[in-house]
């Protein structure tokens, strides 16, 4: 069958690929806020005076930055399932607990993103000059209000390039979830190529969709960066 018909014909695989692409984007969008948020928390822990917190945070980021993303995903994915089953066996014995693959996948991606982004946040926190803290303190703002009103708004601008990078990593890392049980873009392409024996066509099409996402993300990133830097010439 000609390539165009396989993709766009009435019985073509286009809709399946598009649905997979939607799941890929959803997966990335669902993981990003948790991952970036947890990364910021880790960075604050890292810079807090407490030695215990800092040690825990360093251990976490060193581990998940130092091992393959695929392995991190497996560990979190299967570890999470095992932990939930263990809890379930305590709370309600005899009942097996299965976690939705999408949720588990998004959570494991968040863990990886958190470990990667904490470094960006640490650098951004260092970049806010010390006198900003002192000025906020002098104005009588408490720690939380000083952070929320003074520090946080300045973090975004500095962290944006780094976070944008991690976003593109995340977008590509979603493809690893296809090896678990989520029918994302790459898995859709695998199914299509297995049924039709045309792997070049469908993996190529998937690659083009990923490329489109990357390019759009890059464009949005530079728009956001220009906007964030508009006061700084």
């Amino acid at each position: 069958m000609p390539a165009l018909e396989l993709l766009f014909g009435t019985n073509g695989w286009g809709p399946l690929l598009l649905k997979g692409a939607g799941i890929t984007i959803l997966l990335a969008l669902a993981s990003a806020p948790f991952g970036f948020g947890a990364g910021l928390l880790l960075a604050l822990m890292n810079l807090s005076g407490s030695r215990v917190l800092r040690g825990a945070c360093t251990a976490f980021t060193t581990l998940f930055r130092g091992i393959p993303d695929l392995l991190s995903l497996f560990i979190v994915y299967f570890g999470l399932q095992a932990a939930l089953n263990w809890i379930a066996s305590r709370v309600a014995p005899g009942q097996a607990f299965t976690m939705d693959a999408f949720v588990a996948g998004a959570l494991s991606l968040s863990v990886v993103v958190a470990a990667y982004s904490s470094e960006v946040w640490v650098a951004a926190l260092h970049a806010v000059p010390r006198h900003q803290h002192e000025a906020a303190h002098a104005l009588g703002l408490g720690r939380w209000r000083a952070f929320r009103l003074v520090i946080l708004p300045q973090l975004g601008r500095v962290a944006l390039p780094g976070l944008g990078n991690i976003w593109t990593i995340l977008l590509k890392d979603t493809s690893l979830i296809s090896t678990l049980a989520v029918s994302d873009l790459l898995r859709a392409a695998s199914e299509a190529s297995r049924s039709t024996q045309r792997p070049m066509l469908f993996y190529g099409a998937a690659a083009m969709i990923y490329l489109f996402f990357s390019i759009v993300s890059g464009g949005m990133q530079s728009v956001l960066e220009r906007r964030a830097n508009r006061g700084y010439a």
Partner: protein
Amino acid sequence: MGGWLDLSMIEANGWRLLAGLEITVEVVAISCSIGFVLSYPIALMRMARNPVPRTLSLCYVTFFRGTPLLCQLYLVYYGAGEIRPFLTSLGLWWFFRQAFYCCVFAFSLNTAAYQAEIVRGALLSVSRGQIEAAQALGLSRYRVARHVVFPQALLVALRPLGNELISIIKASALAAIVTLLDLMGQTRLIFARTFDFSIYLYAALIYLAMTALIARVWNLVERRLTRHLRKRADPVSRAVGAPGTAPSPTELSTASQAR
């Protein structure tokens, strides 16, 4: 789940992990070397005045950096099967028939794109005045490159290249998905046989040891090679990343280029 410190696990399966580690090291070493060799011409094409090579190089880099490595690996591994008659006619089928070579092929092309961007950034970081001064001294093009541009560019590229090596080690785990029995592949196999989750943690420790070792060695090498740039050793600000100063954008962007 087995015990967290169950040593019988390692006794029974340790040699498998070691065999897997060997494959991982081979794949990474070969791909990184080929990628390094390819990266320089790609970077030069990218900086050429002629728009044809420039566009080609841009497309290459954009494709390999903008799509997941796993997708590229599938394209090579499964795609090769689709065009088998063609590859056979070229006498290349023996190469693409094996998962090992497919992985090396895909990883090399992928890392070449990343390394090309690093090399390009490093070459651009050498200030124009340096080159002009060298030309004014009457040095030939080759000598300008050899004695002025490369030594300075390599120092700039060193850290990101180290990060790239670490990132390839991590990415090499994808080889397991196309049935190669590298460290990750052996780990999955052992897990499938024993259902002992702790094997993943042992694998994590091995990967961590590898990446940490390389990071450490790389830091030593960098310290050694940049010793002329430091007035005196200042371990504190190096460790903390000089508090109060914004990190340079290159440092941020190369912090972690996972696939």
